[in-house]
C-alpha cells in the first residue's frame, strides 16, 4: 500500500485565550486557540504547509499526478481552491485537482481519494492538503474553541517514511455540526453528551474495530493511537472502548491551538511522526459529520534520514503572539467598520 513520502504543517502565529470569546457570552472555554491573521486563509496556510511538505519529501512537483484538498472552510461555495495550490506548484493541466468540502472529515476523505487513485494505478504520487479556519458567530461554542491550521502530505509508493497498512470507514447520518449556505457560521445543538458519545465515540470506535478485524490486530499492539481532537479529553472515549492505555494516546493539542477540524487528527499524527522511530505503529482515526476513517500506519527507516529537512509541529506551536478579543472580532469580521 502507499505511504507518506513527506509532510508539512502550518499553524498561524496569533493566539486567543478561549475564555475571552466565551465569558462575555456567559460560557467558559479553557486553553488557547490559534487564529488566522487578517491576510490568511486555508489557501495561504496550505501554501506554507505544502512548501514544507515538498522540502521534506524531496520530490519534483512534476511527479505529482493529482492534488486533493480537504476542508470545511473553503472561501468559496463554487470554485475549487486546489487549483490555486496547483498553480503555485506549476502543475501541468493533466494533474487532477479535487476539493473535498463541507466536512471536517474532508482531509481524511481527500487522503482516501488519493490512496484509491494510487491503488487503481491512475497516478503514482499525489499531494493531499488540508486547512481549517471555520466561520463562527460570536457567543457560539465554535467561536471559542475552533482553531486554524493546515497540513500537507506527499503520498506515494517510493521513499516513504511511513506506510498505510489498511483503511476502514464507518459512516452514518449524524448531525452534530452543520452550516447551511444561508448561514455565515457553523452551528451545533450544544447537546454535548449526545454528540460526543453517539457521534464521535461511536464512529471512531467502530471504524477502528472494523480496521483491526480486517488486519487481525489488537489495539494494544499499536505504539501510538492518534484520534481527531475537537477537545483534549474526547479521545479517551474510543480509547476506553478499544482498550488503549492513555499513555499511548497522542498528546493534547486542542487546548494549545484549538479544534483544528479536518487537520486535528493529521497535525496530531505529524506531531507523532516528528519523533517516531522505524517500525513503530500508529492507529489513526479521523472524525467529522458522522464519519470516521480509521487507518493503520507503520513507520519506515527513511523517517530518520529525512528528519533534518523537516519543520516540526513544535516550531509552529512555540511561535505565538496573543491578541485581544477586540482584535479577534475585527479579524473574523464580527466587528465591521460602518460602510460610510
Amino acid at each position, binding site marked *: 500500500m502507499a505511504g507518506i513520502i513527506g509532510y508539512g504543517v*502550518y499553524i498561524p*502565529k496569533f493566539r486567543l485565550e478561549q475564555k475571552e470569546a466565551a465569558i462575555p457570552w456567559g460560557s467558559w472555554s479553557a486553553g488557547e486557540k490559534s487564529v488566522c*491573521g*487578517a*491576510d*490568511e*486563509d486555508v*489557501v*495561504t496556510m496550505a*501554501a*506554507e504547509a505544502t*512548501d*514544507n511538505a515538498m522540502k521534506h519529501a524531496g520530490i519534483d512537483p512534476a511527479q505529482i499526478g493529482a492534488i486533493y484538498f480537504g476542508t470545511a472552510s473553503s*472561501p468559496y461555495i463554487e470554485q475549487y481552491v486546489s487549483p*490555486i495550490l496547483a*498553480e*503555485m*506548484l*506549476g502543475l501541468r493541466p493533466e494533474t487532477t485537482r479535487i476539493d473535498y468540502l463541507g466536512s471536517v472529515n474532508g482531509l481524511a476523505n481527500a487522503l482516501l481519494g488519493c490512496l484509491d487513485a494510487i491503488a487503481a494505478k491512475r497516478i503514482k504520487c499525489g499531494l493531499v492538503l488540508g486547512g481549517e479556519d471555520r466561520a463562527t458567530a460570536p457567543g457560539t461554542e465554535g467561536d471559542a474553541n475552533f482553531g486554524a491550521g493546515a497540513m500537507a502530505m506527499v503520498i506515494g509508493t517510493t521513499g516513504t517514511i511511513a506506510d498505510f497498512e489498511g483503511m476502514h470507514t464507518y459512516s452514518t447520518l449524524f448531525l452534530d455540526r452543520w452550516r447551511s449556505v444561508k448561514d455565515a457560521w457553523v452551528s451545533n445543538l450544544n447537546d454535548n453528551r449526545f454528540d460526543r458519545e453517539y457521534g464521535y465515540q461511536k464512529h471512531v470506535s467502530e471504524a477502528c474495530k472494523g480496521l483491526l478485524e480486517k488486519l487481525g490486530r489488537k489495539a494494544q499492539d499499536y505504539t501510538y493511537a492518534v484520534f481527531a481532537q475537537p477537545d483534549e479529553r474526547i479521545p479517551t472515549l474510543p480509547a476506553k472502548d478499544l482498550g488503549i492505555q492513555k499513555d499511548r494516546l497522542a498528546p493534547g493539542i486542542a487546548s494549545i491551538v484549538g479544534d483544528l477540524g479536518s487537520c486535528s487528527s493529521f497535525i496530531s499524527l505529524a506531531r507523532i511522526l516528528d519523533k517516531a522511530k522505524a517500525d513503530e505503529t500508529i492507529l489513526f482515526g479521523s472524525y467529522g459529520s458522522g464519519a470516521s476513517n480509521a487507518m493503520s500506519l507503520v513507520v519506515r527507516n527513511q523517517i530518520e534520514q529525512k528528519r533534518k529537512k523537516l*519543520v516540526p509541529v513544535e*516550531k*509552529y506551536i512555540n*511561535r505565538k*503572539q496573543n491578541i485581544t478579543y477586540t482584535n479577534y472580532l*475585527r479579524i473574523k469580521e464580527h466587528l465591521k467598520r460602518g460602510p460610510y
Partner: protein
Amino acid sequence: MSQPAPASPMFWRFNAEVFRLVGIKCKDCGHISYPRTKICHECGSQKIEEYKLPKRGTIHTFCVNWAPPPQFEPPILPVIVDLEGGGRYGGIMTECGSPDEIKIGTKVEMVFRKVLTERGLNVYGYKFRLAGEG
C-alpha cells in the same frame, strides 16, 4: 475609472508571476526583471531567460505607512528587498507587530498571503515575514 477585476484576463496573464514568482534574467547585462518581459528594461537586449525569484532577502529600504488605501489597517510596512542572488522585490511586511522589528539589512522571507478581496474573489500574492519563522 476602475482597476481590472480579479477574474479578468490581466490577472490570468500574471499567474506565473504571482504564484510562482517567475521573472526574467538578461543574458547580456544580468539585470533581473519581474514581471517577465521580452526586452530587458535595463539594457534593451532581447537575450533573456526565465528566472524564478528567490524568496529570501534583506531589507534595502522601508517606510511605515499610516495612511494606506481603505481596505488596509494602518500601519502597513512597505519594503524593498534585495533578494538572495540578485534582483529586488517590493511588498509589505506581515506578522510584523511593530516597525521597531525591522531596519535596513533585516533578513526577510516571502510568504503567500491574501492581499485583498474584491467581488467575492480573493487576490493572493507574496508578502514578507521576518526570516526564520517557518
